[in-house]
């Protein structure tokens, strides 16, 4: 990409004091709905709730567009907006501010988050119309957007990590939104715990990086068992002390303390820009220091890259931490679209792209990222083949597509990975919202075997779904083709990857091979889901519930449809405004959403009715997203066609400065590989059409019978969850049991013994207190009381007695007067 080494300078910062408004509006909306949403909903109806949320979203989007406008009018090298709100932490030379930054990469992310996020909010109006906890849903949704904006806009690791955890929280809240259902609550917990594993890796990588920037392990001193940690970093043969030698009270003092090399702040930092500057600018020597640093013989950079990628694995659902994503489908479908397709799961990709200058320094880390991505892509795609739950298919497809993104950022085609992130956000949001529309139209049915023939009932949904299928399968008239083929082409031409420090030039082509197979599979299962859902005869109807028993792992699907009724019923009881009718009268619900198909208005509340098209606000959103899936292809037209760099690559160039060497291949080869990509999609489509169109073919059933064992294994997702249960969960609970036994049998006894000894001492002490100390005190008190009792008789209450006393005193005085002379 960058054939000649460019001399890179420091990032020029443009201050934009309005950036804080972008995350502010969503958090404002979330706060309002969280605090008084229930009351508003009760008093003014549901309209006010979603109006607040959607207004907040559109306001954020508007500010983002304003920021985009400003960014566009700056030089490419100066495209960096920053807004520092206040100082969070100052320690020695380290300062951490609450500050937001927008560069081309985060700008793109912000536009996607606020733009697609707004559309999904609009879609939710129709999808969640029957939900009693409407306000809670929109509050969570806004909270999620806020956290996601923090994640991408954070100027430093601290703010990013806040957002990183925030989206985890919001995701947890939204997955277990129908928390009355234990399955869904568990799914939320699973997502949270899996993300914690990833976060651990992320934090460890972060600390390792931080620490490496601050110093190195020295050889072990004579006679000491431990290696010594030196706080001096040798940069360009010059020792730079990075210790915080003095304390700083504020950010300015701290900045003054920072060690500088050639005007660039070096040493430990949380700030992306400072990190990037000191690594990228050759003159500081930090790059050599980082490349040369090792810990226990392992290159630190590789370890940092892999650990950070573990964080990305958790967030972006890569092997082996992908297991939470399919279960996350328990949440409302728009949530799946927003969180688990368009935004949150791309956080890992975003993070790798953001730290491209670090990853590019370690071919081994890149190799790992690409390899894991490729394995995830093919693995998840194969599971997607046989799923019956439409949302599960999409979930595994998401995992697979994320794998593609990691192939992209792994092989060094950062812009391609990010581009795939963008295109995926559009077409996967379309697919998810389309599936949401289908599920709503089929009365909360998610099993594709109960669907079929929906194209005549739901034309808009059908066409948008088909368009998204084309996009994900990689046909040149939709955006998915361009991003996926750029990734695969870059994977094929990458010859610099390594594993464990050993160069592996063969890894690129192998990844390409895996990727093209995964793409074929993607095309197959996506069109399978399309044909099963929209063609043939409608198979839904009364009494379909008893067939669920054959499917041991679609409990979530059954629970989804069954529980939504029960949850509605229980919530309905809690919310008096909702009336006593568990599933509210469909006419009332649709009056809110202005249903456009009055003929089906009566069917919504009853299972087994005719499917119907969704309300206009949902179909409009679907159409807009499908159009977006088409329109975004223009920003990624390959250089081979247009003879200049794609628009998006050019846009992202100031951020993605990493120099990755790709093997030069002739242009015909690139065309040929694009043809191969289209061929792969076509093959998948062809077989899907052959086997599943109109639901007539008996081949799938025959094949299932023939390879029942294999089918079962794949259908049950290779028993990964069960393996986790055995490998992780069982030992963990066993260990916990052992700890419990140890606690109750050893520690408790010790504690009881200590308690008994203490009590004996206490008794002794009590006796001393009672008989000696109290005895003395009581004796004094009794003596005083007795004296007082006897003295009291002097006080007769008679004036005369006192007179005698007074006169006796006078007598004595007179006597003394004469005696003492």
């Amino acid at each position, binding site marked *: 990409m960058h054939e000649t080494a460019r001399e890179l300078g420091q990032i020029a910062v443009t201050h934009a004091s309005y950036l804080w408004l972008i995350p502010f509006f969503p958090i404002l909306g979330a706060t309002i709905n969280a605090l008084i949403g229930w009351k508003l909903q009760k008093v003014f109806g549901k309209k006010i709730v979603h109006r607040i949320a959607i207004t907040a979203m559109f306001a954020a989007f508007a500010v983002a567009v304003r920021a985009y406008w400003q960014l566009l009018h700056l030089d490419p090298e100066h495209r960096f907006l920053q807004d520092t709100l206040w100082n969070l932490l100052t320690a020695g030379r380290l300062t951490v501010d609450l500050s937001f930054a927008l560069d081309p990469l985060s700008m793109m992310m912000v536009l996607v988050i606020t733009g697609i996020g707004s559309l999904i909010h609009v879609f939710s109006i129709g999808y969640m119309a029957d939900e009693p906890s409407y306000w809670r849903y929109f509050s969570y949704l806004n909270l999620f957007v806020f956290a996601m904006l923090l994640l991408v806009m954070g100027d430093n690791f601290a703010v990013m990590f806040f957002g990183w955890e925030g989206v985890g929280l919001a995701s947890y809240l939204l997955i277990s939104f129908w928390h009355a259902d234990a399955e869904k609550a568990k799914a939320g917990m699973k997502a949270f715990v899996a993300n914690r594993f990833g976060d651990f890796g992320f934090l460890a990588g972060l600390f390792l990086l931080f620490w490496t920037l601050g110093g190195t392990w020295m050889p072990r001193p004579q006679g000491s068992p431990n290696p010594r940690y030196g706080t001096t970093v040798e940069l360009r043969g010059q020792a730079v002390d990075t210790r915080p030698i003095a304390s700083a009270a504020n950010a300015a003092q701290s900045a003054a303390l920072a060690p500088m090399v050639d005007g660039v702040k070096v040493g430990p930092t949380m700030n992306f820009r400072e990190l990037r500057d000191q690594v990228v600018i050759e003159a500081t020597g930090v790059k050599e220091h980082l490349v040369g640093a090792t810990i226990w013989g392992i290159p630190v950079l590789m370890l940092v890259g892999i650990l950070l990628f573990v964080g990305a694995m958790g967030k972006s659902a890569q092997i082996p931490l992908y297991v939470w994503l399919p279960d996350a489908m328990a949440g409302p479908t728009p949530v799946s679209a927003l969180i688990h397709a368009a935004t949150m799961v791309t956080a890992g990709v975003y993070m790798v792209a953001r730290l491209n200058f670090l990853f590019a320094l370690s071919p081994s880390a890149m190799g790992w990222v690409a390899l894991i991505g490729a394995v995830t892509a093919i693995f998840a795609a194969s599971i997607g083949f046989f799923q019956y739950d439409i949302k599960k298919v999409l979930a595994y497809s998401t995992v697979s597509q994320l794998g593609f993104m990691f192939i992209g950022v792994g092989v060094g085609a950062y812009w391609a990975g990010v581009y795939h992130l963008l295109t995926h956000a559009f077409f996967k949001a379309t697919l998810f919202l389309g599936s949401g529309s289908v599920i709503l139209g089929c009365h909360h049915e998610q099993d594709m075997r109960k669907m079929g023939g929906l194209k005549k009932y739901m034309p808009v949904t059908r066409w948008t779904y088909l368009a998204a299928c084309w996009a994900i399968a990689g046909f040149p008239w939709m955006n998915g083709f361009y991003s996926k083929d750029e990734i695969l082409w870059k994977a094929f031409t990458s010859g610099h990857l390594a594993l464990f420090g050993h160069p592996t030039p063969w890894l690129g082509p192998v990844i390409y091979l895996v990727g093209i197979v995964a793409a074929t599979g993607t095309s197959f299962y996506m069109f399978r889901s399309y044909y099963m859902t929209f063609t043939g005869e409608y198979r839904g109807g009364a009494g379909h519930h008893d067939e669920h028993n054959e499917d041991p792992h679609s409990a979530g699907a059954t629970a989804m449809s069954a529980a939504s009724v029960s949850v509605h019923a229980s919530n309905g009881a809690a919310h008096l405004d909702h009336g006593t009718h568990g599933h509210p009268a469909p006419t009332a619900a649709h009056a809110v959403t202005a249903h456009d198909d009055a003929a089906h208005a009566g069917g919504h509340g009853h299972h087994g009715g005719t499917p119907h098209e969704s309300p206009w606000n949902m179909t409009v959103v679907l159409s807009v997203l499908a159009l977006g899936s088409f329109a975004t292809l223009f920003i990624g037209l390959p250089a081979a066609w247009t003879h200049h760099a794609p628009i998006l690559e050019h846009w992202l160039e100031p951020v993605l400065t990493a120099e990755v060497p790709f093997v030069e291949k002739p242009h015909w080869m690139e065309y040929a590989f694009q043809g191969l990509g289209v061929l792969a999609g076509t093959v998948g489509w062809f077989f899907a059409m052959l086997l599943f169109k109109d639901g007539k073919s008996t081949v799938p059933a025959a094949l299932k019978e023939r390879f029942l064992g294999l089918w079962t294994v794949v259908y049950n997702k290779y028993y990964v969850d069960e393996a986790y249960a055995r490998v992780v969960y069982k030992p963990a609970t066993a260990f916990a049991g052992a700890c419990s036994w140890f606690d109750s049998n050893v520690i408790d006894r010790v504690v009881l013994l200590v308690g008994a000894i203490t009590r004996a001492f206490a008794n002794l002490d009590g006796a001393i207190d009672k008989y000696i100390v109290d005895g003395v005190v009581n004796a004094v008190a009794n003596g005083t009381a007795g004296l007082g009792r006897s003295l009291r*008789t*002097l006080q007769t209450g008679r004036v*005369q007695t006192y007179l*005698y006393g007074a*006169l*006796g005193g006078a*007598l004595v005085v*007179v*006597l003394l007067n*004469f005696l003492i002379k």
Partner: protein
Amino acid sequence: MESKGGKLVAWALAAVAVVAFVVYMATQVVGPAARGMPRPVAGALTLPDVLFYVIAGFTVVGAAGVTLSRNILYSAFGLLTALLGAGALYVMLSADFVAVAQLLVYIGGVLVLILFAVMLTSRISDIKVSNTSFGLFGGVLLFVAAAPVLLSVALLTPWRVVPPAALAPTAEVIGDALLSRWLLPFEVASLVLLSTLIGAVLIARKEIKAEEA
């Protein structure tokens, strides 16, 4: 001091102390002082002397009646006698205004008040009780201890006296003095009287009211 015996012991001790005190005073203090005193010149009893002794006797007998009388009414009459005698002594001391004040205030006011109180508080059945004094022995002791000391001081002290001026009316001088030098005490005394008036009414009346209620 709770038992009868303890009380007796205490009284005995007091009696011994008083007797020892009186004996000591008589032998050690009064005796030497009396020896140093010039012997009073024995002369003829003039009319004023006779008058003084009569009045003094009158007064002291009245006072003794107050103390010793068994009937509270007789005590009141004894008080009347003593007060009248004191007034007469004031006249002899050239204090005509004080003497008149004594007559008006004491005999016209206080004594009448006391008689009223006697009438109001005495019941037939109380006659006996109202009379009995208790601690007669103590009273005697007290008198024995107090009277000799005071008398010896009064009689044996060599007072630096000046020749008394001629008898003259004092009302005018006292009036001047009260409204000039002793104006503040005079005003304070009037305030005291006022508050006494209110207080006395309040105290007496309140209880009556409480009883009525």
